[in-house]
């Protein structure tokens, strides 16, 4: 005798009509609506259980795509800082600062907009614990904190920002650069 097979009990769930229709369309291409909903809602619960919102997860995917499209790459941070220190020693400060400035200029031109640059810095540079840009008395104040930056890397990163902001029409006025803490002041370039 075969054991009795019982279908799982089902319940009806109310959803907005437009959304239910969209979900139906997607589900039809993948199998059944029932299975698709089952998988989707199970994943929502799984994401929630690890303290993650689905919106956040999808946003992150977009950010990584942007990083890839704009010429960023992953590198172990210890390796990156080691190689920068070695290059600093071998190539000298002028060449290194010039390389970071050029890279900054490239990204400033690529993003072409201060808000986009700010957004990219905040989302892509994982090492930054703080990155703020504020306008005050006709100046642009940039504050940037990273406990992981060495003294020399802090100098290089300030040149990166200078290059990026120059490309966006701002010129460097003055600033404090300490190990891991950058406070920079820019003003709009004439004719910029």
């Amino acid at each position, binding site marked *: 005798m075969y054991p009795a097979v019982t279908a*799982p*009990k*089902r*319940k*009806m*769930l*109310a*959803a*907005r*009509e437009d*959304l*239910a*229709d*969209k*979900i139906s369309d*997607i589900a039809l291409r993948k199998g059944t*609506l029932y299975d698709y*909903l*089952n*998988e*989707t*809602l*199970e*994943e*929502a*619960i*799984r*994401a*929630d259980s*690890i303290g*993650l919102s*689905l*919106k956040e*997860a*999808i946003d*992150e*995917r977009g950010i*990584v795509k942007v990083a890839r499209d704009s*010429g*960023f*790459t*992953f*590198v*172990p941070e*210890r*390796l*990156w800082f*080691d*190689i920068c220190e*070695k*290059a600093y020693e*071998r*190539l000298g400060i002028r060449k290194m600062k010039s*390389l*970071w400035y050029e*890279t900054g200029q*490239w990204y400033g031109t690529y993003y072409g907009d201060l808000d986009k640059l700010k957004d990219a810095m905040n989302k*892509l*540079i*994982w090492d930054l614990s703080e990155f703020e840009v504020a306008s005050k008395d006709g100046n642009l104040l940039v504050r940037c904190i990273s406990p992981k930056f060495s003294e020399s890397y802090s100098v290089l990163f300030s040149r990166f920002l200078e290059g990026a902001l120059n490309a966006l029409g701002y010129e460097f006025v003055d600033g404090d650069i300490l190990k891991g803490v950058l406070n920079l002041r820019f003003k709009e370039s004439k004719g910029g």
Partner: protein
Amino acid sequence: MPKGIPKGMKLIRVPEDLVTRLNEAANLDGEPFLEYVIEALEQAVRAHQMDRSIKQVVDFYEFMMMQKDAGLMITPSETLNKLIDKLYSSDKEFLQKIWLDAGGWYGKYLLAKVKGGDHVELFGEVLKVTNWDLNDVEFKREGSSISLRCISFTMSIENTFLLMTFVEGVMNTLGYKTTNQECMRGMINMDFEPAKE
């Protein structure tokens, strides 16, 4: 339309236990049940527009969090390549050492972070997802031996060599010794066997 359904709403059928768990999750978040479900469905549509399933999106996010934890950072590849290019002729051994050490460290991270499971397979995924210059990564098992083939159409010989060194560092830490390795511009072939205790 069935009675009692508000205008502009539709009923969809789901497993009863799933509704119970959704209810519990919504309660824990302090969100009304209906809003919780609608948010999940809206995000499923968004994921679909990116040609991904919700499962792929959540898996990817977990993976990225793991990379952050493992001390990876995102940096301009052009700058990295220029530095490698400038240092390679004078400091090849230094570069080789830091790549090998970084690989060893990453292998230890995988062992510590992922209890159980196939670490080699996971490392293959890491290479595919985080090494955007690679067009193909293939780990093959034959008995206890493992072979790896990586292909890139854009990677310089210097970067290919350093990637091979990084892979060696990871695999050695995962308990494999390198029995063969070949490297040419944009191509790596490596064979491994379990290291004897």
